């Protein structure tokens, strides 16, 4: 019993230390007044798509399906989200369209991996490659402009003014989803089924769980959350879209998933740290005095370097479902 408790504590100890440290740094910088744009606001914005994507992927990987195509889903749903917002003349509808588009891609990925028994890494990478070409094609085909599209300010999803400064409603939704995902995985029958399917699909099958439907469901859910994150980027953050809008965030979210060991709450912690790394980079990049001394390009590398460091330090302590990435077939 004692060792079990210690194992559990180990899992939570370092992530919590990291979050506390990040929070302390944020507080210190805010206090020091080094802020042309609020670091907290920038960090929460950067965190939101990572949280959504990572939590969806946590659930997905619990069921034994690994989707490395998140980057591609973020890219495609960013475009479809903007298209939806312009079509309906409403930013929130755009978020919805992005979510649905993400769910559809997730569904397709689920069908391909479950019934097609695909190599999931290759199929996921195929989604990324597809997006890499489709997004510039769509930008040309829809708006007839190469590589970039700016939309009207009124289509932006408006932030709410709170105690923390300006806060996007999507950020609040994302935090709620983290809590719901935690409850889903640890307190509900569906959650136990998901875990069973990921750990021992044979046993789940004998117990009467429909592995195929469950995995397709988690893929669709993961795609939908990723799609909300993708549509969030142009519609609630950047105010426009460029063909590289996701900038590796799909893979940083995968790093969050690795960091979390498939715990939604820890994935949230990881996204918080990475989000603030990015927010910090933005704040530094535009701070007078620093702006001239440190080139923009060097600042841009910070999120990726931090991702590498965190993954390198935390890995090896994590255990993943036994059937991760394996298609299931009855003997």
């Amino acid at each position, binding site marked *: 019993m004692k060792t079990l408790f210690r194992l559990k504590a180990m899992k939570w100890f370092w992530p919590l230390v990291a979050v506390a440290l990040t929070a302390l740094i944020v507080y210190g910088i805010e206090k020091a007044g080094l802020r042309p744009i609020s670091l907290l606001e920038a960090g929460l914005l950067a965190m939101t798509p990572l949280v959504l994507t990572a939590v969806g992927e946590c659930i997905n990987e619990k069921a034994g399906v690994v989707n490395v195509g998140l980057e*591609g889903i973020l890219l495609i749903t960013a475009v479809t989200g903007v298209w939806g917002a312009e079509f309906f003349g409403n930013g929130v509808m755009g978020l919805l369209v992005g979510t649905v588009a993400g769910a559809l891609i997730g569904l397709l990925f689920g069908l391909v991996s479950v019934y097609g028994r695909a190599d999931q890494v*290759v199929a996921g990478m195929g989604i990324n490659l*597809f*997006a890499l*070409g489709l*997004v510039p094609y769509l930008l040309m085909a829809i708006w007839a402009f190469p590589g970039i599209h700016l939309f009207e300010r009124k289509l932006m999803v408006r932030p709410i003014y709170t105690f923390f400064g300006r806060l996007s409603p999507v950020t609040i939704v994302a935090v709620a989803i983290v809590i719901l995902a935690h409850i889903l995985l640890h307190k509900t029958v569906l959650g136990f089924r998901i875990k069973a399917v990921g750990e021992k699909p044979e046993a789940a099958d004998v117990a009467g769980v429909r592995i195929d439907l469950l995995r397709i469901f988690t893929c669709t859910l993961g795609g939908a959350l990723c799609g909300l994150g993708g549509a969030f980027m142009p519609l609630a953050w950047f105010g426009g879209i460029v063909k590289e809008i996701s900038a590796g965030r799909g893979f940083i979210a995968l790093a969050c998933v690795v960091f979390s060991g498939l715990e939604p709450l820890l994935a949230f912690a990881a996204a918080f740290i990475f989000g603030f790394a990015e927010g910090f980079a933005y704040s530094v990049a535009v701070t007078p005095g620093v702006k001239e001394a440190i080139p923009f390009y060097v600042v841009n590398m910070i999120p990726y370097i931090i991702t590498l460091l965190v993954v390198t330090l935390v890995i090896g302590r994590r255990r993943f479902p036994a059937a991760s990435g394996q298609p299931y077939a009855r003997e």
Partner: protein
Amino acid sequence: MKGSELARRMRPLLESVVTILLGLLAGALFMIVFGYNPVNAYQALFKGAFGSMSDVLETLAFATPLMLTAITFAIGVKTGLFNIGAEGQVYMGAIGATAIAGKMALPPGLHVAAATIVGMLMGVLWALPPALLKIWRGVHEVISTIMFNWIAFHLSMYIAIYYLAEPGRAERTVPAMPTARYPILMEGTSLTAVIFVVLAFCVGVYIYLWGTRAGYELRLAGENPDAARYAGVSSNRALLLSFLIGGLAAGLAGASQVIGRPPSWSLYATLGNVAGFGFDGLGVALIGRNHPIGGIFAAILFGALQHGGRYMEYHAGVCSELVRAINGLIVIALSVPEIWAIVRRRLKR
């Protein structure tokens, strides 16, 4: 008996061809949805790719770097890795070649060789950290190579703009000196003698993998790790070698775009003339069945799509990036082993 043996050997080729056709068909659907005429577009694409001798050479020029980035991915697969770091290694290779070719004066002959080799070594330099992270800490190569790609993206733009920029022309680096350029094979096209170096490299990798003991061990470590361990093969060594050869290939691909590709003979500050080869190479490798020689033919096909794609963009108005989307669909189709089982079952009925 002999007929079935032939059929078995031809099956991968048939699968690749069918998948390519499916990809093109899906591309046509995307054109119809947005009101383009796919027949016109594909006609333009084909004519652009193979319409004349100079077009064929241009297609080969587009194919050259893809043969190499395909090897980077394919040799990773042979050792059981999913190495998608070619993109960043290409950037670094281009930076290395530009620094030597544009900034250092060396005698002719030696200059080309030095620029090529430094480019390749820069590729290796960028392949080394993900390999070591994998060996020491077990960091998954998909995450580490993507992070290194993005770091390379910003780092090489920084180096290109701050250290290698041509005075007065902010959009690109200093061009390679004439002594550091590969000779052009036919006036008016952009195919240079670098293609022979590249083909020799591909054949070299083939001989290494299938003709030497080290290459056999490398493949064994990927195909059957248990048997490899039992036979005393160090899987870490195989893994490291696979990353390093991949780095050499990608570095050469980057160098080839600077010292072997007119008219720019330099690196664009946006990295526009080297971007995307790493990821295109992934699709090329899969179509070429992760084989260095198969990769040559798949690269020519993809080079044709890219060169023809520009013609298609000009004459049919279809954005040439659609070709990349088709590549992605082909990769998704190739990931599904069951498609072929289903097709075969249908055919047998």
